[in-house]
């Protein structure tokens, strides 16, 4: 597929546009998008989703931050607003496990070299090693997929990622 595009470039036809990039990306990133939709089946959906939403805020994707994982909605727990997630260090919405997860997710986005044993121990205080590893994997997946979508200008339907629009999630951050 990509080779065909390169050949077209060399033939002297119209210069490529970013629209072509976005169209190619939808096919090329199928594995990432599928994993994003399926990962919810193996992680704590509430913790993973608040991490995803905080990372989306930090990466400049407020629309993504207002979506909610369908699996998290099914838990029937209170869904934090975007404003509450932005203000998580001071918000009373989050318990110690959620705070440990959000602190970890923020550090992953800002500078992974700043993650230390104490931060991982905070996670391990609230979950077993398997759940910890899965949460770390999920944070990587969410961040990598979102960065790719943003750079490539790839817009996908929320359900493609296992997400839905939740009426009460989008209060102003």
């Amino acid at each position, binding site marked *: *597929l*990509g*080779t*065909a*595009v*390169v050949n077209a*470039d060399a033939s002297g036809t119209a*210069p*490529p*546009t*970013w629209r*072509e*990039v976005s169209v*190619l*990306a939808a096919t*090329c*990133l199928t*594995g*990432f998008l*599928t*994993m994003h939709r*399926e*990962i919810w*089946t*193996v992680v704590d959906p509430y913790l993973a989703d608040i991490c995803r939403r905080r990372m989306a805020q930090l*990466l*400049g*994707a407020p629309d993504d931050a207002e979506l909610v994982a369908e699996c998290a909605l099914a838990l029937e727990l209170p869904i934090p607003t975007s404003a509450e997630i932005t203000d998580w260090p001071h918000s009373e919405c989050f318990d110690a496990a959620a705070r440990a997860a959000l602190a*970890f997710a923020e*550090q*992953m986005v800002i500078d*992974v*070299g700043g*993650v230390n*044993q104490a931060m*991982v*121990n905070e996670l*391990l205080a609230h979950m077993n*090693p*398997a*759940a*910890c*590893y*899965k949460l*770390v*994997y999920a944070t*990587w*997946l969410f*961040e*990598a*997929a*979102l*960065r*790719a979508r*943003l*750079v*490539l*200008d790839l817009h996908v339907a929320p359900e493609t990622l296992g997400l839905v629009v939740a009426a009460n999630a989008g209060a102003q951050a």
Partner: protein
Amino acid sequence: MSPRIPLADDAPGPIGVPTAAGVAPDLDALRARISTSVPVGVVHPVTAEVVRLRNARRQGCCLCQSMRYHAATEHGATEEVLAHEYVGRTDHDVAAIRLCDAFLDAPAELGTDERQELLEHLSPGEVVELVGRLANWTYNKVMISLGMDLDRVELRPFPGEA
């Protein structure tokens, strides 16, 4: 570094660092069923290696900085060419690095003009392949955060390569 979570097996895996395989069998099964890999073949091996090492240095991943793809070295990726400060970089590879930096820094801020400038040097297929491979290369963040990186850079080929 030492692993920050208990592992199923502390022995180094095939690439010389511990592996999290076996810690979460349900995730292992999911990863075996769904691959995040992207189709490879449009991007020149040297360009790919330049971008892979850009990410490795930016993340501070010693393992990634230690590895060299045989396909890249075979096509001219000498240590001089791969050095961060190499001054002979082509416009094509400079564009590839700019794309990498946009991904790693502020992906939401990549503007229309910058995108069009990238397309003056990279084909749409190259852009997509580079971003898809880069997304996968950032898996080193999982390894680093869980203490499963090398302590220092030690040049070595990828396992299974000549």
